[in-house]
């Protein structure tokens, strides 16, 4: 981790070290009401334990049930109309949906409801099956079933995060043999064979008798275990796979739909050239978005803040270097040099060299003025806020949990908001 402004020679030493040792680098710059920090990861960074929202993780596989689940639902509903009110009112909604999906298929050439129209029709069918001649005038479990129709009757598909993992071309073969990539390959084979991901195995709470719910929960857990075992087998059969921890396989299976790859394009080409190009294309994109921001009600880009800060940082570093070369007090350069006031015009000139034309953008001009006012000084609150965000992101990277930013976070303390940009 280092802070801007930094002497170019120190920066190149740090970058060389990071590259040699494959160490993530975090650059931080805070000045006045503005700040940004930038994370530079040494290569593609996969995360399994992304902690998605609990409600998003439900995969009930209602459209591709396995034999044990089908048999359980069929047994409970074989005489559905003959059930007493308590039993009927406590059928788990998973069982209700499976039962009426069978009925639907029987009436529709063996096809599941697929279109929105069919699904709403199916929902009506479920709603109509609820008993209403009771004190409550309806049944909660049937309400739950109807409410779950649109959410759960979705054919299995490959989430974008995992697709990126499957399609990722490894620049270096060493990386490919890590546990993550071995498991990813096994999951890919599993997906190609079964056309679905391993079952996460979590059953949401639903209205049901305790005993029935626990039985159903065990059916989902058992299936999740057997899917994970199948994947473990594939992993262990591959070269290097015998070293993979089965717990890592379990975790991957539970989170397969939410696995995420950060910095997927990193590592290729000459870093310095691609960085400059990326900045220019990001600027073109961001400024184009700003043209329509008022119409789309989206916030204005914070790229001007980034441009102004890093231009000021570049200027300050260059000025400090000049002092250094004269031979006066070298060493603790960054702090003293940041005090040197850099004018808004100097900032704009530097921006013009990096992103031609940007220096004429009105918001860039304002941001340059604001950065010039700070004269390289930090405001405690903005530094504390940025430090908090950096700490949070570093913890995510070290623990490989949650999803870190990719790759630059800009904070505007005047508007009180952030934007994450890939620069």
């Amino acid at each position, binding site marked *: 981790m280092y802070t801007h402004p930094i002497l170019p020679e120190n920066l190149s030493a740090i970058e060389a070290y990071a590259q040699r040792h494959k160490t993530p680098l975090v650059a931080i710059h805070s000045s006045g009401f503005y700040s940004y920090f930038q994370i530079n990861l040494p290569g593609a960074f996969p995360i399994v334990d992304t902690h998605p929202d609990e409600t998003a993780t439900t995969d009930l596989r209602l459209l591709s049930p396995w034999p044990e689940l089908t048999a359980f639902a069929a047994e409970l509903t074989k005489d559905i109309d003959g059930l*007493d*009110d*308590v039993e009927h*009112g*406590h059928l788990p909604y998973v069982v209700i949906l499976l039962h009426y999906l069978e009925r639907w298929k029987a009436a529709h050439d063996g096809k599941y409801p697929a279109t929105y129209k069919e699904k709403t029709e199916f929902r009506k069918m479920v709603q109509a099956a609820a008993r209403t001649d*009771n*004190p*409550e005038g309806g049944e909660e479990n049937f309400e739950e079933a109807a409410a779950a129709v649109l959410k759960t009757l979705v054919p299995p598909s490959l989430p974008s995060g995992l697709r990126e993992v499957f399609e990722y071309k490894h620049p270096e073969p060493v990386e490919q043999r890590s546990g993550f990539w071995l498991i990813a390959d096994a999951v890919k084979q599993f997906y190609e064979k079964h056309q679905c991901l391993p079952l996460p195995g979590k059953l949401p709470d639903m209205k049901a008798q305790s005993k029935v719910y626990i039985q159903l929960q065990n059916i989902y857990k058992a299936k999740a275990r057997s899917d994970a075992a199948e994947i473990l087998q594939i992993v262990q059969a591959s070269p290097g796979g015998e070293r993979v921890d089965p717990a890592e396989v379990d975790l991957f299976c539970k989170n397969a739909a939410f696995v995420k790859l950060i910095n997927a394009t990193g590592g290729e080409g000459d870093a310095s050239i691609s960085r400059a190009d990326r900045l220019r294309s990001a600027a073109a994109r961001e400024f184009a978005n700003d043209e329509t921001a008022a119409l789309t009600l989206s916030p204005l880009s914070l790229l001007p803040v980034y441009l102004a800060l890093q231009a000021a940082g570049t200027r300050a570093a260059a000025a400090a270097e000049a002092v250094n070369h004269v031979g006066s007090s070298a060493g603790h350069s960054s702090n003293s040099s940041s005090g040197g006031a850099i004018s808004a015009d100097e900032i704009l000139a530097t921006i013009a060299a990096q992103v031609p034309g940007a220096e004429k953008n009105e918001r860039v001009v304002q941001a340059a003025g604001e950065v010039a006012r700070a004269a390289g000084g930090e405001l405690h609150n903005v530094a504390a806020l940025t430090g908090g965000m950096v700490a949070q992101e570093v913890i995510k990277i070290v623990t490989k949990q949650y999803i870190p930013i990719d790759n630059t976070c800009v904070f505007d303390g005047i508007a009180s908001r952030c934007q994450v940009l890939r620069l």
Partner: protein
Amino acid sequence: MLKIWSMKKEQEKAENAGEGTTAPAPKKKRVTAAQLRVQRDLAELSLGNTMTTEFPDPDNILSFILYIEPDEGMYKGGRFSFSFNVTPAFPHEPPKVLCREKIYHPNIDTEGKVCLNILREDWKPVLNLNAVIVGLQFLFLEPNASDPLNKEAADDLRNNRDGFKRNVRQAMAGGTVRGETYQRVLV
């Protein structure tokens, strides 16, 4: 100068060009949000002829007792009372309601807890006190066996409706059902 002052002045100017200044008030205790809502809710209460209220302290409208005397159904002839305590979080939290007698009812336990969806999981701030009393009244007309608090009473209601009715009469008279002695609630 804090900018809020200049903003307030501008806002006022925009709102009303010259309504006289208001009476300077000695600062007094303010009416709370819960009090406001309860005042409004009470004015909309429709008790019919089976319910009455009692306010031990009329100045504290957040705490009162509701009496229900069902005029039909299995609990006809009984008089049941519920304590209502409205917390400062009302209407964002439901009122706390307890049955003050020990009664034999599938949806009310022997501690007086009431299983009524809008008193817990289905409460919404748009609901009012009237919705709660309608719900309570309904519990006496249509006790519900499928999701009980008093499991024995629910089993009786489900398996032997006539037996359940007899048990209700017995319990309301202060008798014993399945080893539990209930409170006399007959009028």
